[in-house]
């Protein structure tokens, strides 16, 4: 059954019709064409499809379009501020946080959620925050380093 839904997507008000059972992940990728959000498992086990929903990280493969009414969704495509990369994107580039890059959008959204809440996380905080986001390439070391570096960048910016 199709239902009219209105929500905010990457800062823009969006109205569309979609079946209530359609997954947010499929809505983003297939209907809206934002393929930056990745599908790794479809069962909420890998974190590749992480987006921010009302500022909190969610697996978009576990959110139904019927739950979207009035919500604010931020995807990887909405992470840049104008032409500028976000601090965490910059750190991933510099530190080698992405290899094949398929888990990267989810990793970045989860990292962003962590840093929005805590710009001075310990290594354990970072490891715990990212523990639901699987990566098969990097062995996580460069990802953890990138989040630490992004945190330092954010803190120094806040001081200025």
């Amino acid at each position, binding site marked *: 059954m199709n239902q009219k839904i209105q929500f905010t997507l990457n800062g823009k008000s969006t109205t569309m019709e979609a079946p209530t059972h359609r997954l947010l992940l499929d809505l983003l990728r297939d209907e809206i064409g*934002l393929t930056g959000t990745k599908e790794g498992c479809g069962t909420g086990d890998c974190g590749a499809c992480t987006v921010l929903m009302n500022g909190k990280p969610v697996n978009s493969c576990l959110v139904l379009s019927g739950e979207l009414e009035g919500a604010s969704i931020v995807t990887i495509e909405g992470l840049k501020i104008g032409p500028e990369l976000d601090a965490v994107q910059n750190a991933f580039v510099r530190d080698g946080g992405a290899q094949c*890059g398929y888990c990267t959008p989810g990793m970045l959204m989860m990292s962003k959620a962590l840093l929005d809440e805590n710009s001075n996380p310990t290594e354990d905080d970072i490891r715990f925050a990212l523990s639901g986001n699987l990566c098969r390439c990097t062995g996580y070391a460069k990802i953890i380093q990138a989040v630490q570096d992004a945190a330092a960048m954010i803190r120094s910016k806040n001081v200025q």
Partner: protein
Amino acid sequence: MAELTVVGKPVTRVDANEKVTGEAIYGYDLVLPNMLYGKTLFSTKAHARIKRISTEKAKAFPGVVAVVTGADVPWTHGESIKDKPFLAQGKVRFIGEPVAAVAAEDEDIAQAAVKLIEVEYEDLPVYVDPEEACKSGAVAIHEDFPKYRKVDFIVPGAHANIAEHFKLRTGDVAQGFKESDLVLEEKYFVPMIQHAAMEPHSAHAQFDKETGRLTIWVANDAPFRALHEIAEALGMPKEKIRFINPLQGGGFGSKGGLKVEPIAVALAFHTNGRPVRVKFNREETFISTLTRHEAVVYSKTGVKKDGTLMAREMTIYWGAGAYAEKSPTVCIRGSLPAPGPYRIPHVKVDGYAVYTNKPVAGSYRGYGIPQGAWAGEQQMDEIAKRLDMDAVEIRLKNIFVEGDISYWGEQLHAVGLKETLTKATEAIEWGNKPHQIKPGVKNGKGFACIQKPTRSPTTSAAGVMVNTKGDITVLAGTVEIGQGCNTILSQVAAEELKVPMAKVQMHPLDTDVIPYDASTTSSRSTYHMGNAVRRASIHAREQIMEAASPMLEAKTQDLDCVDGKVFLKDQPQMALTLGEVVRRKFGPEGVVRGDGSYTYEIGKDLDLETGHSDHASAFYMYATQAAEVEVDEDSGRIRILRMSAAHDVGKAINPLNCVAQIEGGVVMGIGSALHEEMVIDQTGKVRNPSFLDYHLVTSLDTPELISIIVECAEPEGPYGAKGLGEPGLAPTPAAIGNAVADALGIRIYDLPLKPENVYWAIQNKKKKDAA
């Protein structure tokens, strides 16, 4: 050699930006205009005859465009044995084998229609154990095996289920054991695991009736080989087939060969020219794509009192799964160096690739080396213990060094093994081994050494274009699977053309325009494609120098090239940009193109009776990894405290990328050591086809990683480089196994070292000690 300006530097990845913004388009993301959606019906039986398939209901379902079964696509394929049908023909051989497929207007319709296909099976005996499958009396999983087309190096075994029998014969092992002071014989087991690349598998295909052209969009790591395999199967000329590679979200060996491709192709011939996309979800990827070979390894080693190795005999059963895929070459290249990187006068190896009714095993990062090392390297430690020798000392006494003749008859050069051994063990303070620090927890250290060959002989070709802006475009068929080849190859082009990295871009991979490359496998790309791109870049540079010579009124030997400019060596102000030279010579739209290719010339082919060869591999990779662990005696849980990994890479073209490859490899190796296994029941069903039940390493599980780069230059490699993609995980389980044995005083022979296995090993020892 002139000083290197880009090669050898820790350059950041050239593809990072598109990956952190979500702009990168992977195979799984690709949407084609007017595309249909394909879904697959998989076999629910591990071994059965198909008595009847009826597709009428599916065909009649609204929105369905095509339904295909094996009857519509009478083709078979296979890299070295043509044994695999596009869709099951008459029988099924594993749960997850594609039986039929549907193309429809959307995915929901396709899935609903698949459920309407009815298949009636008649059960046959199921073989889930490779040793059982080749016992006399076991029925043939492939009745027509003798009739299959095979490449000429295949040596079928005595039993119909043995697809390949590799033999290595050196000296006389019976004599060697007789002359030994200690002979040890043990059985080791490595279970089936999966690559679990984060991007699941998919393929798109379109057949244009008018032109007779078939186009396939797929993140395949060997598009030229896949093209060849499809052409051969279909009896189509190669020029009628085109492969286009979207980005690949990891592969680790799983995305070569043909898996989803045949299903997409089968459908594409029945959709009236519309493209069709076939995606496997995660569960389908688990049961229907590829796995790493389970292996049963019998190892018998004889040694003198002073630690000198005398003889080693190994028998390895490689569980191939239902189809041969790359099993014959995994069996050959995994069995050949299985006795380890040691001087051993008497060696006998029998490797058997055995069909079973399990998911197909194929190439997996490491290509048979981890299985051999799990047995051989643990046995080395066990021998050292019985001789009361230090594990480092016994290795040093026997390891390959420069100029040694290996037991397969090849003289070795560029052997950096000793340095990796010394550095890896020093990094975890080998001499200092406390066995108990905390109550209830035992500590231990261990290490393992490996040597890995690469697929040989093979060819890579490349083109390098320079336009009037001085921009460089590299045409290379190496697939960026995350390993960083686009960065490495850009560095090589930038180095040879003396331009900044920002001036270089990689052309997207399309077999219509990109020169031939054998495959992105076997850690071969930096060496082979690095050489090809280097040659193509030099070819382009020479043409530019020649064109610039009259413009600058100087001989070419008096010209030099730096920072995107050609200039006179003794008058650097007399300079032209590369782009200016191209424009003046060829006009505003002009391009200079350089071409280069590299083929490793093999010496004598591997002798099929003895396994001997004077050039089995273009180069060899050497590594030692060392682990420090603690084991909780109550729960059996292993915690890795730190892990060092020293790898001989020849020359690090990009040290940052080398460390990235090592770290990623080690962590993958840790997963295979501690918890990864595909659990398959007696009916052949995979019981854990999800990330909930198949445990990958998470960010909570990784230890301190110490990556060490050793550079023992390979003269034929570009700037001395070898390869590094695979060895990162090869010695890891054996190193951890040795550390656990050191901690507990218990040898565990079967992977993975999951808590319950370790727990029961501890309990059994307690019982034994009490008795």
